[in-house]
């Protein structure tokens, strides 16, 4: 009796795009559950709307480009874009804005450049910035976490608001929405208040905003899962978070009453999601390890700078898009030396 023998290598590699994307989706589940717990059903509804819009847009444009539809839809990259977008937008965003954002992300940002693997910009962030710039008031209707909310919206009421049925009887947007922790911190600081004064409000948790800090924690858990599964490497998250921590610590030490403490910066807004899920998008980042460290660090610097001295309370989307633009150049100058090649002396 003879057994068939295989030659080396004996370990196989079973990763493909679908498996990678599925694991990214899996890693986002804890964060999404936390968001739903604190901010209501809007998140889930938005994820659903965005996914349907993204998949339809992708199928449409692929048909227009005369490409095979099923394999591209099945790689789940459109769904990942949709979910990343849905967790970035306010929970009660009107449905047509979500759909419009997704059409822009998939058709213009992704497929016009040639589809997955060719897009220079992160589609989810480009769509988010498009909407933020075009519809500033709708895009800043954030809900307070449920512990602070005086009106709880059930699933049907949320659905009604998203699909344009208006607010329930006796409710106004002003009563329903609240500034995000980053926004609140910024406004209060601009009014000349001190941090210790600002933090008397019940909207603050242990280090970030009440609720938002826990959403960030759960996304962090998902990010660690991705690291463990080796979907992403440590370079970008560590350098991005490191840069924010270093800058925030420096300014905080210099003037602790005028600059929020480092943990606040880390666990507010989109830093954790950005560091683990968005900046690490393999298509739009640098491929060299040294380049990834520079890429991540510069995102961190931009996030802190725009938050502190720029025009917007949060800046992860802007920072990521700006650095997407710089990624090819960074990659060009950080190519590793080929084994045996002499190290170049002198400038660039």
């Amino acid at each position, binding site marked *: 009796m003879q057994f068939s023998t295989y030659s080396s290598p004996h370990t196989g590699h079973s990763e493909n795009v679908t498996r990678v994307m599925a694991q990214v989706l899996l890693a986002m589940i804890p964060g999404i559950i936390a968001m739903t717990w604190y901010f209501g059903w809007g998140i889930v509804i938005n994820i659903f709307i965005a996914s349907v819009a993204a998949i339809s847009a992708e199928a449409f444009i692929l048909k227009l480009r005369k490409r095979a539809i099923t394999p591209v839809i099945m790689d789940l990259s459109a769904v990942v874009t949709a979910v990343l977008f849905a967790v970035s937008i306010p929970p009660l965003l009107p449905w047509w804005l979500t759909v419009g954002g997704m059409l822009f992300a998939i058709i213009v940002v992704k497929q016009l450049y040639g589809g997955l693997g060719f897009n220079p910009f992160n589609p989810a962030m480009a769509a988010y910035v498009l909407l933020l*710039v075009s519809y500033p008031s709708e895009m800043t209707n954030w809900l307070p976490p449920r512990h602070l909310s005086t009106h709880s919206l059930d699933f049907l009421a949320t659905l009604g608001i998203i699909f344009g049925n208006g607010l329930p009887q006796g409710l106004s947007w002003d009563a329903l929405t609240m500034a995000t922790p980053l926004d609140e911190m910024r406004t209060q600081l601009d009014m000349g208040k001190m941090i210790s004064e600002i933090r008397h409000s019940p909207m603050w948790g242990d280090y970030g905003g009440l609720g938002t800090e826990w959403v960030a924690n759960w996304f962090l858990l998902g990010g660690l899962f991705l690291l463990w599964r080796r979907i992403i490497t440590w370079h970008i998250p560590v350098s991005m978070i490191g840069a924010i921590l270093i800058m925030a610590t420096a300014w905080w030490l210099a003037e602790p009453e005028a600059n929020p403490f480092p943990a606040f910066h880390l666990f507010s807004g989109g830093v954790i999601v950005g560091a683990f899920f968005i900046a690490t998008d393999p298509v739009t980042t640098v491929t060299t390890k040294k380049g990834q460290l520079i890429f991540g660090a510069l995102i961190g610097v931009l996030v802190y700078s725009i938050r502190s001295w720029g025009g917007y309370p949060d800046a992860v989307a802007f920072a990521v898009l700006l650095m997407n633009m710089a990624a090819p150049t960074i990659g060009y100058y950080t190519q590793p030396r080929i084994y045996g090649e002499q190290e170049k002396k002198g400038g660039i």
Partner: protein
Amino acid sequence: MNSYREIISNGLWGNNQALVALLGLCPLLAVSNTAINGLGLGLATTLVLLLSNTSVSLIRHVVRPEVRLPVFVLVIASFVTAVELSMKAYFFDLYKILGIFIPLIVTNCAIIGRAEAFASKNNPAKAAVDGLAIGIGFTLVLFVLGASRELIGQGTLLSQAHLMFGEAARDWTIQIEGFKGALLAILPPGAFLGLGSIIALKNVIDHWQQKQTAKEPVVEATPQESPG
């Protein structure tokens, strides 16, 4: 070799400076946020093109090739100054809106491009027609881009028409009820997206026309009789 017909069709479509040569994009992208702004700058550019093309053609035998570019720039700059001063006199509000982009017509590469590539090699009549055609082609793009950006960006069309056509034009503005628009179209990215879409549209039309002309001989070759 250059019939007037050809010159005109090239200026308006085939060699449209904004859509094909992609020249003069700086003012094109910057002031095309409303239809009236676009029209205003387009007409100013057309006037300068017409005058500069004619004069460059008139002096084409006098100017030595070594110094032709400075001379062209000088000619263009004089006309731009004249246009700028007249706009300041007659369309002061529009002048204030267009601002720096009026004097910057001097640096519009479409104008010096036409002086160098066409006017310095052809007689004044042809040069004038070319200047007019190129200018109108440029104006049309500015107007269409401005109109679509205005429509998408703020849901209006021909707003502030009185800046150009006098008080009677104040109510020309068309407003889409209940549409506030996507602000992005007015902002700089909107200009790039809009221009890109217009260029794509032109390529689609050209492509389609090519197909039609390729088909035509076959159609003509088939006998036209229909028995029975």
